[in-house]
Structure formats: structure tokens, C-alpha cells
């Protein structure tokens, strides 16, 4: 059965809401500067933390006269949001706040964010632009498996998909069997969820004898966690869909900060609303385009909770070349890693994405893995648990031992340290609907 039927064709046609994506650069810069000045004034007036920090540096809103002057402004970090829990960073009266969201705090209090009615409109607009960039249109039937609730993913994607004019099925997360039933019976053409959850859906569907390739679904809008290019290829090969990366973070707005386009070659940042900078994480100084650094984001239009130079801890580069799609809003490289995903073992910095890339490079790709760190007799040990799949399983012990040795060697080459590889049964590594937690650090400090 052919994947695309006339009513389910993807659209790379221009969508009117995407107009700002194509603003000529001089106009875009003027717009950004105008909004930046307004935002700084508002933040200075209404948010204690920002006013205090600017006063400490003898800065006033009038000091921001050009876009480069943004560098004079102080950074904001995650702990600032924790320290001002719950409403300390709001620039609006609570009666003007129509929505509050929060991220699940992994340690301590959650991060709380707020939206005025205008903020919700902006959020909806950037989500429509996200979906349009990912070739979705009003004829699509979109399954939204991002969690609905305090998490920004569910409602963010929902409002955008509805405004796009698509048919929206709010499945939220969980109940995988029902998700598959919906995907199949409701003729879903696109799904929104985390990439690791989608892998889980593929596997569970296969167990039920359903090949996603035979269903009408043609696109996945994946975000909320970092994922690698080999993982994308694995997903596309297994399911026959186009797997798009989208970018966002709760502190800025939720999903809708940036998105891939049909070319799947970097994330276009909706920079008329979110101003991007890339800096050296140690010095805080800007790095030239094309060089890696930490992504810093500033909201240009958010009212209830403006964010000035937020340190995302995401590592990326600005892609200097214009994109073939014609958008003038700049692209950044997909986020392969966060600078705080990193762990140190025996003096070596390791990022889970390095482990992922090494595993996927070995034949017979194995995407479900977990890193377990322990300390035995004062020596740190790193174990990589990998789930066995039908593709690599053999009746011969030697074949499995060879695979284990191959994986261990690939990891040794990639990381520079010896790790043990354990083959484990399928479904023993916990799945998650939110960000996949790849590292279990059992070393007691």
C-alpha cells in the first residue's frame, strides 16, 4: 500500500503563518532590535532579579541600542528559576496570566513558567510554523502523544496543530497499545512524541504484527530530548516516516523555539521571537558562526515571563550558510548533547550521545541502551547494557559473544576507556515518554 495518497501528501508549499521565517535579514534585525528594547524595558520594570542584576552592572534599558548590546546583559541560569519559585520571575500580574506550566524537576522544585493571552497566541504561532516547516498541513491527522498537563509539550503541540487546521487526536502519553490502535484505526498521518518513545511504539507494534511502513503515517515531530542522526536513520528505515527534529525548552516557551524544515539539515530558530547566541561556556564570550559553543536564548515577545540570555546548556553551532528552503531565520546544528549530560569516568569526559553513536555504528543496530556507573574497589566501572533484538540474536553463543566484543571495541575506540557491554533481554531497560534517562550513576560520592 503506497504511503502517500492525494489527501495525505506532505506540503512544502508556503503557509501564510510562516511569513516571518522568510523576512529579509535587514527587516528581521530591525524587528529583533525593536522587540529586544521593549522586552528589556519591561523586564527591568517588573522583574526584581533582572533589575537587580542590571543595577549591579550600572545598566539601564537605554544601554541597549543595538543587537550587539545584548552582550552587556547578564546571563540567566536554571537555578535562578528554582530560586524564584514559584512566581518570582513573572513580569505580569497573576490576573493577566492565563496559563502556568511547570517542568518536572528532577532535583527539588520544578521550573514554573507563565503565559499571558498574547503569549499563548505567540506560542500557537510558532507551533504552526514548526508544523508547517515539518511539511504538515490542514489535511493531516495528527496524533499528539506528548504528555498533556503541566508539561509544555502536550498543550503546546495541541494548540499549534489545531491552529494549523489539522485533525488533532490528543492521546497524550502512555497506554502504548491504545496509541497503536489509534495510529492504525484513525489513519494517523503524523505523530508528535519523543524519539525514544517512538522507537518503543515501533517495537510494540511489531510484536503485534503491525509494520508501521504499511500505515498512512508519514511524519514524526520529535523533540524533548537529544537524539542522533544515526537514530533518525534507524527510525526512518524501520517505520518509513520522515523523522523531524524540533527544539524547545520550558524556560523559553516549551516546544516552538526552533524546528527542522523539509531538508532536515539543522534547526531553524524562530528568531523573531527567540534571539540566539552561541558562546564559549567558560568565558561567556561569543564564538564565530560555525564554531561550537553553548546556546543562549533571549525571548523577544514573551510578556508574562521574559527570559534574558538564558544559558540552555545545549551545545551547538550556528550554521552560517543559507538553507535551501529559503528561510532567513538562522539554523543551528541539531542538539547532539547537553553540556550537563556529560559524566566523568576515570578522568574522561563522556557524553551519552557518543555511546549511542558507537553502538549504532556497529552492524545490527541496537537503540535501547543504558549506561550504569559503579565504583568497585575505588575504581570507576562503566557498563553499557544493550537490549538484544531479533535482528542480532543468534542460536550460536559465539555470534553473541562476537557482537559483545565488537560493541566493546567500538566503545573503547570512541571513548578511550574500556567498558563492559552486557546484552540484556528486551524491555528490561525502562522506557520513558519524556526525556530518556540514559545514565544510572550508582557511584556514591
Amino acid at each position: 500500500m503506497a504511503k502517500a495518497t492525494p489527501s495525505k501528501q506532505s506540503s512544502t508549499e508556503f503557509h501564510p503563518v510562516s511569513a516571518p521565517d522568510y523576512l529579509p535579514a535587514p527587516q528581521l534585525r530591525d524587528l529583533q532590535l525593536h522587540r529586544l528594547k521593549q522586552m528589556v524595558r519591561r523586564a527591568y520594570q517588573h522583574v526584581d532579579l533582572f533589575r537587580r542584576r542590571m543595577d549591579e552592572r550600572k545598566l539601564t534599558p537605554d544601554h541597549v541600542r543595538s543587537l550587539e548590546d545584548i552582550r552587556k546583559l547578564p546571563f540567566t541560569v536554571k537555578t535562578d528559576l528554582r530560586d524564584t519559585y514559584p512566581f518570582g520571575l513573572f513580569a505580569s500580574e497573576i490576573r493577566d496570566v492565563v496559563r502556568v506550566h511547570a517542568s518536572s524537576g528532577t532535583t527539588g522544585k520544578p521550573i514554573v513558567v507563565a503565559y499571558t493571552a498574547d503569549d499563548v497566541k505567540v506560542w500557537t504561532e510558532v507551533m504552526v510554523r514548526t508544523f508547517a516547516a515539518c511539511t504538515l498541513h490542514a489535511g493531516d491527522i495528527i496524533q499528539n502523544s506528548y504528555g498533556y498537563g503541566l508539561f509544555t509539550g502536550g498543550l503546546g503541540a495541541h494548540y499549534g496543530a489545531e491552529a494549523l487546521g489539522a485533525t488533532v487526536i490528543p492521546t497524550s502519553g502512555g497506554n502504548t497499545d491504545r496509541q497503536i490502535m489509534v495510529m492504525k484505526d484513525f489513519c494517523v498521518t503524523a505523530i508528535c512524541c519523543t524519539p525514544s518513545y517512538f522507537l518503543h511504539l515501533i517495537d510494540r507494534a511489531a510484536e503485534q504484527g503491525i509494520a508501521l511502513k504499511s500505515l498512512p503515517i508519514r511524519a514524526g515531530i520529535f523533540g524533548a530530548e537529544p537524539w542522533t542522526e544515526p537514530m533518525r536513520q534507524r527510525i526512518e528505515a524501520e517505520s518509513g516516516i520522515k523523522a523531524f527534529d524540533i527544539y524547545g525548552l520550558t524556560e523559553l516557551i516549551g516546544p516552538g523555539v526552533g524546528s527542522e524544515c523539509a531538508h532536515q539539515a539543522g534547526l531553524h530558530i524562530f528568531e523573531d521571537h527567540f534571539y540566539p547566541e552561541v558562546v564559549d561556556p567558560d568565558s561567556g564570550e561569543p564564538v564565530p558562526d560555525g564554531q561550537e559553543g553553548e546556546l543562549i536564548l533571549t525571548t523577544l515577545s514573551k510578556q508574562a515571563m521574559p527570559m534574558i540570555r538564558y544559558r540552555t546548556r545545549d551545545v551547538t553551532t550556528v550554521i552560517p550558510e543559507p538553507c535551501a528552503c529559503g528561510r532567513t531565520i538562522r539554523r543551528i546544528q541539531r542538539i547532539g548533547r547537553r553540556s550537563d549530560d556529560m559524566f566523568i569516568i576515570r578522568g574522561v569526559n563522556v557524553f551519552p550521545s557518543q555511546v549511542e553513536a558507537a553502538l549504532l555504528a556497529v552492524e545490527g543496530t541496537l537503540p535501547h541502551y543504558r549506561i550504569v556507573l559503579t565504583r568497585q574497589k575505588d575504581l570507576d566501572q562503566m557498563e553499557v547494557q544493550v537490549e538484544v533484538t531479533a535482528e542480532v540474536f543468534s542460536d550460536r553463543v559465539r555470534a553473541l559473544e562476537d557482537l559483545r566484543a565488537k560493541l566493546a571495541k567500538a566503545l573503547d575506540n570512541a571513548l578511550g576507556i574500556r567498558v563492559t557491554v552486557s546484552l540484556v533481554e528486551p524491555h528490561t531497560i525502562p522506557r520513558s515518554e519524556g526525556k530518556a534517562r540514559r545514565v544510572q550513576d550508582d557511584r556514591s560520592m
Partner: protein
Amino acid sequence: MKINQLSVFLENKPGQLSGPCAALAEAGVNILTMSLADTQQFGILRLIVRDPDQAKGVLESAGWVVNLAEVVAIEVPDRPGGLAEVLKVIEGSAVNIEYIYAFTFRRADKAVIVFRFDDPDAAVALLTSHGVNVVDPVELYGRDAD
């Protein structure tokens, strides 16, 4: 001539063996013979059943990773030297034995041994040309008890 043997991946933890066996029991599958290969970390449970495709479906729906491999059942005289004679035929050739194990029943005075060869077709041709009886699966499944 060749039999589809089922193998299941098991982590080497207490209690792992009962899961697949219980699942098959519930589905009414009778295990004709089996063998368990173990390493420090994992085990491979190998099973001969009447309907390997059905059994594969049962185990996969319950979440196990399963593989089908072609093996050959060979009649071997049930007396000292019986197996050695068959092995001599194979050893002189280019065919390799990966592993073997025995069926739980006999045919008259013959034992039936399962062989996993690296090249089952070449092995079958070699053995039949030396007068060794390769047992057809149909004949095996005919007996439930002997």
C-alpha cells in the same frame, strides 16, 4: 530434511528459564527436546517443537527475542561407538559442527541426535551419501512417547 529449531535469549539470572517454558505450556506447545547453552552472562535456550512458527509467535508476543535456525536430526546406533562413527564421516569433510544434543526418545535401537551444522545442506548430502539416516521431521513428530 531440516528442522527449524527455536532459540530464546535469556539473561543469566535466577528464574529466567521458567518464563518461556510457562508461556509455551499455556499455549499447549509440547517441547520435544531442548538444550541450554550458558555463558557467564546469558543463556540460549534451544527448543525443538512441532510447530516452530506458532511457538515463535507465542514467545515474541510475550516479549522474548526468538530466532529460528535449521538443524538436522540424525539416527545414531545406540551402542558404544555409534556417535563416533557418524562423527568420523563429518570430520573428514569441510562441514563444521556448531553444537549437538540428543532427543529424549529412540527409534528401536537407534538414538536420534540433533546437529547444528554451519552448512546443513552440505552436511545432509554428505551423510546420506555415507548411508547415515537423516530423520525427516514428519517421522519425529509422529511419536510423542516411546
